[in-house]
């Protein structure tokens, strides 16, 4: 009996345990380590955002604040950097840019994918080449164009520009379009539907996963874009969140505890969206990667 127990436990261990345990241990250790690294910079910011000036000056940055209910920095940052207005502006920019770029992007993709016409290849190549141009480089000359169009310091000017520089979502739409069978269009044509109708009634609804992906990728980049926004949106009324944060964080900045509060305010909307739509975001990102 003694021996059988031994055999049993030995077998059991060999088959599941040592490797499993070691691997599990390493796995959780690594995950905790990287989770900690990922969250540490943000945590430090949160700690500091709750400190008063005096507290900030006298305590170590990683010492927790005396009160986790000291919201005065958040209130100060919010009013000082005019963040309420900036939120609204960012929201407007994001919604309009997403809607417009989804529509024009999918329309272009529809035409490019469904019709063979002279110039089809040329247009594809034009967009491909444009994707190679780093946008920071061309801003040197885009500025003068924006200025001559009277687009500076107007939300609409910035919005038009943001819609215009979109290449990724067009790629994505073409990619998806290839998986929508042409027979669907053909049968609709048999029924007498116009191409216009085919686009709106058949193609667009079927593109939904691609639209979600494109909105996520583009939404993140538009919400966080500051280089162009800072260049083209200077007056207080039109600043987006990233720009208002920049005036706050910039060289003449403010106290660190106040800036930390500003930083946190700026990513709270992103955090909420992230928590609510986590899975859609993950699958969107994964889908976006298959563009090749």
């Amino acid at each position, binding site marked *: 009996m003694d021996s059988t127990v031994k055999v049993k436990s030995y077998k059991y261990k060999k088959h599941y345990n040592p490797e499993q345990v070691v691997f599990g241990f390493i796995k959780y250790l690594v995950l905790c380590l990287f989770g900690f690294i990922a969250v540490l910079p943000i945590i430090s910011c949160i700690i500091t955002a709750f400190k008063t000036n005096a507290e900030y000056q006298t305590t170590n940055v990683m010492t927790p604040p005396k009160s986790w209910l000291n919201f005065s920095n958040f209130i100060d940052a919010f009013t000082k950097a005019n963040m309420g207005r900036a939120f609204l502006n960012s929201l407007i920019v994001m919604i309009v840019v997403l809607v417009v770029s989804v529509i024009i992007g999918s329309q272009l993709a529809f035409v490019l994918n469904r019709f063979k016409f002279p110039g089809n290849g040329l247009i594809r190549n034009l967009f491909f080449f444009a994707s190679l141009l780093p946008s920071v480089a061309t801003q040197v000359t885009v*500025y003068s164009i924006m200025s001559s169009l009277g687009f500076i310091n107007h939300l609409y000017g910035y919005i038009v520009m943001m819609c215009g520089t979109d290449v990724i979502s067009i790629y994505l739409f073409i990619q998806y379009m290839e998986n929508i069978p042409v027979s669907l269009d053909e049968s609709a044509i048999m029924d007498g539907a116009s191409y216009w109708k085919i686009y709106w009634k058949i193609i667009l609804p079927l593109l939904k996963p691609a639209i979600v992906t494109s909105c996520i990728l583009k939404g993140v980049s538009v919400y966080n874009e500051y280089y162009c926004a800072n260049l083209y949106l200077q007056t207080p009324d039109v600043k987006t969140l990233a720009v208002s944060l920049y005036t706050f964080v910039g060289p*003449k900045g403010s106290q*660190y505890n106040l800036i930390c509060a500003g930083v946190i305010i700026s990513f709270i909307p992103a955090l909420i969206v992230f928590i609510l739509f986590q899975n859609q975001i993950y699958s969107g990102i994964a889908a976006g990667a298959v563009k090749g």
Partner: protein
Amino acid sequence: MKKRLLTIALAGAMCLGLAACGSNSSSGSDEKKELTYSGTVLGENTDLKADITVFNHRTDLDSDDYNGTTWKEYLAAFNKDYPNIHVTITTDTNYADDALTHLQSGDYETVMMIPAINKSDLSSYFMPFDTLDNMKKEINYADTWEYDGEVYGVPSTATTQGIVYNKKVFEKAGITDLPKTPEDFIADLQKIKDNTDAIPLYTNYAAGWTMGAWDAYISGNATGDPTYLNQKFVHTKNPFSDPGDDTHAYNVYKILYDAVSKGLTEDDYTTTDWEGCKGMINNGKIGCMVLGSWAYPQMEAAGKNGDDIGYMPFPMTVDGKQYATAGADYSWGINNSVSDEVKQAALIFVKWMTDKSGFSYNEDGLPVSKTDDRTKLSFDGVDFVTDEPALKGEEDYLNEMNSESELNFNNGGNEKVQAIVEHASKGDESFDDIMKEWNQKWSDAQAANGIDVKY
């Protein structure tokens, strides 16, 4: 960087708008001869009724926490003299850019600090205060915003270039006399390091523009010559060579290099904190900082020990004498498109701010008004030098040289000063080599721009 670009673009756009606005304003100003600065006498016309708006950059004066006189208090005092002039003051943190946008939109405040516009565009936006000759009798720095013999701006205050320091730290370090030469200064910094816990000299490297601030010391402070910066500098051969008498640009930047290489500055220059430095100098954690006198009141206001903060002349002596560059800060300008009554009220407001409010004195500036010459900047034995404008036909030379040489003096050339700190700290390039490089760039730029070398 990008903001400058915008400024320029806006200025360009304004040129276009000039024709339209210009005709408008000239037809108006003919009949308003009586509306002058010198013709405005404080204490008269006290029942004048008007609403004026004022736009400026001093957001700090909006706050009740401000240690000095707030806008509210100024307005209360003003309304005691002029109860029926209703003044609304708005302030903006990003003033330099936003003021230009206000101007460009055509809808701007009655009184505002004149932002960076071309002098030739002044008359399209602002009314002339008076002739230059008349203004010279009323205020200092009258020619700051002069164009064609008319003055369009009255300086709100005037600043000079020296060093803001903590008196207590200096005392503790055993410094009895303020330094007058670079060697003395470095020796004093060493004393601070040896005898106190304070950082002797805080560079403010990370903020960038605070490093570019060193450029302000190479003209009057280092030469005593009002014509140096705008007239001679561009024509000088190798302006960054050592003249051997502890003056000129070479020795200005050498102070920085030496201080860093001798470990007399902060430990980690890459993470300096501009907002934090104010509190640090106020409570004695910093010995001194090389910043214009505009910074003086901010350091005073940043903590409980405002009285410990002092402002001293730059430690450089030219032929046995110390000099300090002095110049106007932002100037008040008056909207040219408002009614005469409002203009009159605005004139009264500006004159009151200049002669009666004590604003310039309160803000630790040099006197602007001829009738109120009080100042807290006790620069005994120091001569103030005001840079003269460039010669006719050479107005663009300095800009061209700055751009071509990429040294950008007084024009955002922060990187070159930051590089001094880096090399001094790393010890990978001697100061003489850095200056040699600058001389080379300067000479190349002179050749490229076809500017003749005269000095």
